[in-house]
């Protein structure tokens, strides 16, 4: 749950630099932004290299990534364990789909509107949860309940097409403004990459901002943070709003990429679980954990699908069976929580900084 490791590493770097009397190293956020820029640049040619089906996997990874970054802000940095991020994903998806299908509004505007709606709903849910002092499991269950209520209500509300959901109307050719391109176009990947890059950048900047530090301090010790002047309620609300808005981006983009959304896809509990598992496997409360987690979880179902479609001989009994991908990531989740509670990235970073200090 902590990111002592990364800050420790930063601290160690600074100390050595100071002792050696060299120029001060990059501030942590600038260093992280630099790494992000490098990663994004490296990823740009991917859709041109990968075969089309794998291009789709890459886009899926980026959608997971945005979701996990959103979840991580609230539950990793803020320590507010959400079990209902499907609510915000779904609000992003439904707001943009509704505006596009019913009113012909550009998906970009829809995305912004979805972010606003998700943030507002998150603040309302958050306000009541904090006001009534829901903690830990109770908070998690409350978030879950709200996501499920949204699913049930959309399922039976004709104004948003009920259980049928929305199909995004097709256009001729491609249009950035309509966020629609020919099937398999690399533009989808690039746009997702920009959105994911922005999400990670926001998460970096937020983590190192005054507000972000307050949020982490409130997570570590709420009363102590308040006692040095951290406005608790305001920062908790800010955290849930930011987290919800980023998650809503994933929802809106999902709708545009898959051109279809229904209550189960938008608000189903599996969406919440995917956000959690991705962030936890990568490293909860770290900047890069969601990135690592998304790569692993996102490609896992593709790898297992291949394995199941054409299993090697010793796995022949698996042919046509299902659920293997979920089983694998469930096992991974359990093992990681038991053995490396800081996630894959958090643990590796901790190891590195430990070795540096020695």
């Amino acid at each position: 749950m902590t990111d002592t490791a990364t800050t420790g590493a930063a601290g160690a770097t600074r100390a050595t630099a100071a002792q050696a009397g060299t120029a001060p190293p990059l501030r942590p956020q600038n260093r992280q932004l630099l790494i992000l820029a490098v990663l994004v640049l490296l990823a740009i040619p991917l859709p041109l290299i990968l075969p089309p089906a794998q291009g789709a996997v890459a886009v899926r990874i980026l959608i997971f990534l945005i979701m996990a970054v959103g979840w991580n802000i609230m539950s990793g940095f803020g320590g507010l364990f959400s079990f209902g991020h499907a609510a915000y994903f779904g609000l992003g998806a439904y707001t943009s789909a509704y505006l596009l299908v019913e009113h012909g509004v550009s998906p970009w505007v829809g995305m912004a509107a979805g972010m606003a709606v998700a943030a507002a709903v998150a603040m309302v849910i958050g306000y009541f949860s904090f006001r009534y002092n829901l903690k830990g499991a109770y908070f998690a269950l409350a978030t879950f309940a709200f996501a499920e209520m949204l699913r049930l209500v959309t399922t039976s509300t004709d104004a948003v097409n009920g259980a049928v959901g929305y199909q995004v109307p097709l256009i001729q050719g491609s249009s950035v403004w309509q966020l629609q391109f020919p099937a398999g176009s690399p533009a989808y990947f690039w746009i997702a990459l920009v959105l994911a890059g922005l999400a990670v950048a926001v998460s970096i900047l937020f983590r190192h901002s005054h507000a972000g530090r307050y949020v982490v301090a409130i997570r570590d010790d709420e009363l102590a943070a308040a006692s040095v002047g951290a406005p608790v309620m305001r920062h908790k609300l800010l955290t849930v709003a930011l987290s919800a808005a980023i998650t809503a981006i994933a929802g809106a983009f999902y709708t545009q990429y898959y051109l279809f959304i229904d209550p189960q896809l938008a608000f189903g509990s599996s969406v919440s679980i995917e956000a959690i598992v991705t962030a936890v496997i990568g490293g909860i409360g770290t900047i890069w954990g969601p990135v690592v987690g998304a790569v692993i979880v996102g490609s896992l179902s593709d790898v297992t699908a291949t394995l199941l479609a054409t299993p090697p001989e010793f796995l022949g009994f698996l042919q046509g069976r299902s659920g293997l991908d979920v089983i694998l990531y469930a096992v991974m989740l359990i093992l990681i929580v038991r053995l490396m509670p800081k996630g894959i990235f958090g643990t590796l970073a901790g190891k590195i900084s430990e070795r540096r200090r020695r």
Partner: protein
Amino acid sequence: MIVRKLIAAASTGLLLVTAGCGGSAPSGAAGDAAGSGSGPVRIGALHPVSGSMAVDGLQMRRGAQLAVEKINEAGGIASLGGRDVQLTTADTQGKPEIGQSEAQRLISGGAVGLVGTYQSSVSSNVSVVAERNEVPFVMDVTAADEIFQHGYRYSFRVQPGNGAIATSAAEFLTKVSEQAGKPVRKVAIMHEQTDFGTGAADAFTEAATDLGLEVAPRISYDATTASDFTSQITQVKASGADVLAVSGYYSDSLLIAQAINAVKPDLDAVWGVSNGAYDQPKFVSDAGPIGENYFSTNYHFDAQNPETRQLREEYQRRYGAPMRTGAVLAYDAVQTIAAGVEHAGSTDPVAVRNAIAKVKVDPLTVGDGPVRFGRDGENVNSAAVLMQIQNGRVKQVYPPRKAESDPDYSVAW
């Protein structure tokens, strides 16, 4: 220093992406021969062969496979010099986004047409992929009617839609009840609350009202959580309805049958509408005597057609299970695409699409004539049939030309 380490870690991550993606390379590697003049003609089959719909999905994949074998035994595609047909399969896992990416994969693998997908939400996504890639998509099982309201040119459907079945159900009900001398006046309807049940209930209500029936009460329920329908059946009993129409999935329909058995409402008949249970052999064995005399209006394999019987015997022999209607529909859908290729004399998907729009194919499922598509992509000759459980067997009972025996308009309690 640390920057370098992190960059190293990052590139490892990227390698992982590539490795992860490389994992499924074999499935996409077959794409070279796409649409070219040699090799087999590829038809893509998308079904949920894993996940909660796996049993039906597997049935349908096998049905499609049997169709391909049949075509090849008969000498392949004659207009292309006897080229063989090959089925390329994909698993949708019952998830729309997987269905979409798998459809894309099959198309880039050179499929001239797609069949599938059993679930409306998946078919919605695949129909979009088909439209954008200009590859024909012939749906075997897909209940939702919404897909055909977008004006897509590349989507076709063999089975009667949800609305069509429900409309037939209302017609059959008036006719059968009149024949029996107990004309129906008031029908209660229970339906599960997603698009499938709601769509069927809407269409049924409209058709029944047009025929002068009163439809009340109308009761919806959440199939994923309901575990007891006694109160709802009590409500039906209290309403004095003559007939109860039920539009639901398997488990909930079974629970409704159990509740009916408990409450024993004063009904003339139980009337399945696109019902997921009341025409299934599994329902007969699970429900036992309490399911006796239940009616169901649905699409169905043509039990009167010798060719269908032969196909189902073949299936039973090969796979050790009775062939379900979905599998027969998949068979019909593959036959339709193959006929399109034959007619077009080409493997160009656009040409195949135009040919499919014009072909006539004799189906092994119940229909009013050969499969023939209207402008909207719907099979104009698709038809529903009324079935009834009689002495522990599902029998076609109406309309008369498809009937295996006469309807017994009564209840068993």
